[in-house]
């Protein structure tokens, strides 16, 4: 009986706080994505030959986002029936966009306007009894190009 109460409480806490964290995070992601829109991300390996930047430098950003109790439970259910695991999709989406935003903020600090050869790498972090800690890490990196200064 006590087990059940603990379980339901954790589920409710996970749902409440997890939802809060997610909506808050998405709000900040949307806001910053708008702010960083002028930095172009290009997944090409070679910049166009006529582009001669003043400086190029590696930039990177990463984020580790944790699952919550509710999501893990829902995903567990999904494992029985199969199909899309929506609760984890949003998790990965958040981690990826956050990593890209952090990379962009590094690029902006350098004064770059383009980032070439974007690579995204995802790693899952889990440890402890029955994978007591579950989280994903996304790393985004690329080469920032700082344009030649236009003499005004």
């Amino acid at each position, binding site marked *: 009986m006590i087990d059940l109460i603990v379980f339901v409480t*954790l589920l409710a*806490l*996970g749902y409440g*706080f*997890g939802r809060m*964290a*997610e909506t808050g*995070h998405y709000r900040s992601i949307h806001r910053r994505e708008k702010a960083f829109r002028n930095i172009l991300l290009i997944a090409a*390996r*070679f*910049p166009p*030959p006529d*582009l*001669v*930047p003043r400086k*190029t*430098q*590696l930039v*990177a950003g*990463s*984020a*580790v*986002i*944790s*699952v*919550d*109790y*509710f*999501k*893990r439970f829902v995903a567990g259910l999904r494992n029985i029936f199969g199909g899309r695991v929506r609760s984890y999709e949003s998790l990965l989406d958040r981690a990826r966009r*956050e990593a890209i935003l952090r990379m962009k903020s590094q690029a902006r600090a350098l004064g770059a306007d383009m980032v*070439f*050869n974007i*690579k995204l*790498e995802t*790693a899952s*972090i889990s*440890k*402890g009894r029955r994978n*007591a*800690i*579950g*989280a994903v*890490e996304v*790393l985004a*990196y*690329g*080469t920032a*190009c700082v344009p030649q200064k236009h003499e005004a």
Partner: protein
Amino acid sequence: MLVSNLEIVPGRRVLKHLGLVQGSTVRAKHVGRDLMAGLKNIFGGELRGYTELLNESREESLSRMLEEARAVGANAVLNVRFSTSSVAQGAAELFAYGTAVVLEGE
């Protein structure tokens, strides 16, 4: 030292290839951070401790790679890649590698 994950540097020629340079580090998280992470696993959200830890380790492996590049007399490392693998429970290896080259110019 110029570090880039492109295969060329726009506007500058590669004079000499010096081969692969690499750097790696294996890190484990400490108990305090794990405790926090355990809590966060109920509520969800970002694990800042882990983000920091992984960033620090990645910097470390990058700087080891650059050391190696300096030792062979390169002035740039191109086509840099990162890779992460978990070695044992709670420990992760962060690996950085790239091609050391000598570029023309300063």
